[in-house]
């Protein structure tokens, strides 16, 4: 196993090589053991200051990053755009440079614009971790998803994964496609034609519009959240890409009835937050086949591993 990490920032899964991902998983294994100890903290990042810059709402990712940073003994400052000078018209680079002037070593950035993390990495002298940039990538989510599949099945290679739902607006879908393919899994997407981007087949991904067929094929069903905030304002329930939420739930919602009909040992994942009764029914989300809560636990270990590896170089 190599101990070289090929990148200085974590901007997206696309830039990583498979060896980087294996290294992150290997280190995450050790952190998973650490966070299950009675004393869950290690001092590795005690001289590192991390700024969590969230220009978009987030609960779980922000908490998960903050917990990971604190478990590594880093100093943490939090920033969210709703309560900041961004409202007064300050640009992203200016905001970040002001924060860096306070001697911050790493930045965790969530931003509504695709490419924001890359833009920043080229302009400021700090290590950047992308925590979601618009509809582009969400690398740590994809890493924790693949890590959870690896934990369940032992390996990701040759596993069949279907990503169901709003592929068009989903950074989780894009990062997962890159990550799963780099680890040797087969990926297909399923959803209403309006929510599947045209170019998706160029990523070597199968497309199906029938959820039952997709479930027959797969080992893992990754349900995505219907992003109501990105659906536009037309139609009922603010939905513009499909007639109604009820129709979506009937066609593409994962229910116990459907899973029983397929009668296969499929594991069910969801990046959260869940719209219960829309993309996934409550009895599936809370069933033994669902690994949604271990995804959340693994999220902390994966983020600790990423922070640890990126901070680990001599300056």
């Amino acid at each position: 196993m190599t101990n070289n990490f090929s990148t200085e920032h974590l901007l997206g899964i696309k830039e990583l090589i498979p060896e980087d991902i294996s290294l992150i998983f290997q280190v995450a294994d050790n952190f998973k053991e650490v966070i299950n100890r009675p004393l869950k903290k290690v001092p590795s990042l005690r001289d590192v200051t991390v700024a969590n810059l969230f220009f978009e709402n987030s609960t779980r990712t922000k908490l998960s990053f903050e917990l990971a940073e604190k478990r590594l003994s880093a100093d943490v400052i939090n920033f969210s755009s709703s309560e900041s000078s961004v409202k007064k018209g300050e640009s992203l680079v200016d905001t970040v440079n002001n924060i860096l002037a306070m001697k911050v070593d790493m930045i965790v950035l969530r931003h509504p614009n695709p490419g924001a993390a890359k833009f920043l990495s080229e302009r400021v002298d700090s290590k950047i971790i992308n925590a979601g940039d618009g509809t582009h990538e969400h690398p740590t989510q994809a890493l924790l998803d693949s890590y959870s599949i690896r934990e369940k099945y032992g390996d990701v290679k040759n596993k069949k994964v279907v990503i169901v739902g709003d592929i068009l607006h989903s950074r989780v879908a894009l990062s997962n496609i890159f990550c799963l393919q780099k680890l040797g899994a087969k990926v297909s997407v399923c959803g209403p034609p309006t929510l599947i981007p045209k170019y998706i087949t160029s990523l070597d991904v199968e497309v199906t519009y029938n959820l039952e067929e997709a479930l027959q094929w797969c080992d893992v069903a990754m349900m995505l959240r219907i992003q109501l905030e990105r659906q536009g304002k037309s139609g009922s329930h603010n939905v513009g890409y499909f007639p109604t939420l009820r129709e979506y739930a009937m066609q593409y919602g994962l229910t116990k009835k459907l899973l029983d009909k397929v009668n296969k040992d499929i594991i069910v994942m969801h990046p959260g937050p869940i719209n219960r009764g829309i993309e996934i029914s409550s009895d599936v989300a809370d069933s033994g086949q669902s690994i949604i809560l271990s995804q959340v636990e693994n999220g902390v270990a994966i983020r600790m591993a990423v922070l640890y590896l990126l901070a680990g170089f001599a300056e």
Partner: protein
Amino acid sequence: MKERVILESDQFNLVIKRLCCELIENHNDFLSTVIIGLQPRGIFLANRIHQILTEHYKLDVKNGTIDATFFRDDFRRNENPLIPNSTKLDFALEGKRVILIDDVLYTGRTIRAGMDAMLAFGRPAKVELLVLIDRQFGRHVPIQPDYTGLKVDTIEEQRVNVQWQESDGKDKVILFTS
């Protein structure tokens, strides 16, 4: 690079047996004593000692492994990040007498980190250090072993390598001089 074998297989095993006898002398039935091997290379010695104590002397001894990587003081001082090894400790250390085991003691920094790592699992009553090779006069911190297999006098340019049958095919200790 010149190499010299300083401990051959027969002698090597004799030394380990002697270390086990010293442990029994001080810890009797091992009721409140546990042994912990330090990753990555100390675990071979800990396993060997554990094997002798349980199989030959029929003692019930708990054996764990600890990785000190996250507690090292040279993190962010190398070109590459330090890659951790696994920690396996399925018993609490609260109130126990702990024998910390490593193959080579040199600067003492690994042992310092190991003791920090150990504290996450409780407050031991007492901690002792057992090493196979003590490279004297190279210490950076005030740490001394309680049980020593062999003391060697070395200079900074030299390197001591302990090889194990389990991983390297033969039990021996080699001194490299560049």
